[in-house]
């Protein structure tokens, strides 16, 4: 009985925490770098999204890149117009486990190679 309890508690403790939902659909062991053109940048809750057109074998494939909520992006230096349609961008992601073109955002770099956003400010301590 005791070992079951600990096992259950440990499972809950081991998982990372996500802002809105479980991260089970993303493969956190796999990191992919996407280079493409922004189709849309959706500033919304519970997630902001980048719809990114990535060329693959001569064809544009559209990826849905899930970001955090507006508060998280805002505090990370992002703004509603940080990305605009037509922008060239490189985005590092954890892809979906099922292989479809969706992913969780990790970081992004503009056409000039500079990172977008910033490390979150910690002014409270």
């Amino acid at each position: 009985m005791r070992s079951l309890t600990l096992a259950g508690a440990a499972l809950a403790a081991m998982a990372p925490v996500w802002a809105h939902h479980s991260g089970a659909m993303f493969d956190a062991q796999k990191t992919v770098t996407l280079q493409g053109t922004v189709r849309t940048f959706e500033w919304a809750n519970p997630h902001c999204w980048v719809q990114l057109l990535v060329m693959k074998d001569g064809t544009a494939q559209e990826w849905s890149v899930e970001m955090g909520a507006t508060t998280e992006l805002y505090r990370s230096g992002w703004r509603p117009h940080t990305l605009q349609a037509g922008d060239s961008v490189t985005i590092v992601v954890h892809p979906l486990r099922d292989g479809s073109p969706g992913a969780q955002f990790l970081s992004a770099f503009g056409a000039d190679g500079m990172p977008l956003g910033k490390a979150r400010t910690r002014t409270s301590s």
Partner: protein
Amino acid sequence: MIRPVVSGIVLALLASLATAAPNSARRVQAFARLPDWTGLWETALSKALTTAGGRSAGTGGAYLKLVGHPPFNPEWEQKYQAALASPAVQAARDETLKGCGIGSPEYVRSFPNIMEAPMVFQVVVTPEETLFVMDHGEVRHIYTDRRTHPGADDLWPTPLGDSIGHWEGQTLVIDTIARTAGVLSMFSPAAELSARAHFIERVHQTDKNTLEDRLTIDDPERFIHPWVVTFRYTRAADLTRFIPYDCEADRNPIENGKLTIAPP
């Protein structure tokens, strides 16, 4: 006939004067005795989400208190263990967990879960009541006007329960009852409370930038002794305004027991 009309006019005039009147000296003094908790506060969960991707760097156990093991009595301990092993509960915790939006369970918006799982909240302190205004939209009303809980005929379970409070110096003591029976924490769907659960919180500021909420939960139907968890909140000094966290544009439906991404 004229008399009631005149009385009505006089009453309306008095009401408008009362509305326009400044705070009484007594109320001003009452305000002066209360702590200043203005500004925005963030949970340990929010503090852990340090990237624009919305994922914590560490594991949940480092930030979440309600995922602990409540002190269930033998009957409910057995049920808790069975739930932990249940595929449905495991899926609710590991696969389909959602804080809001399409397919999210109602308990994600219940107390005490909302004391752990908003990102940012505001505390509005007045002599009559203190409000906890959560970015997910919930508002807890803590009445501090010396009222008691409603009588049995006027009370029924709700997700946030019924809260009254009083001040012990600079500490707000909150007493909450009549919380809807069910899951305690969205991160721990195996643990369920009865509608008789009783909650006592002691909220106070430990330093300029830290607010602490020491929560004691007792469930006479299910616990062998009260259970204490402590939430610590940090002042979100980089935010100068309240940003709502709505779920209007949720694109994560659950299909075939799995979270997915819907097209835009």
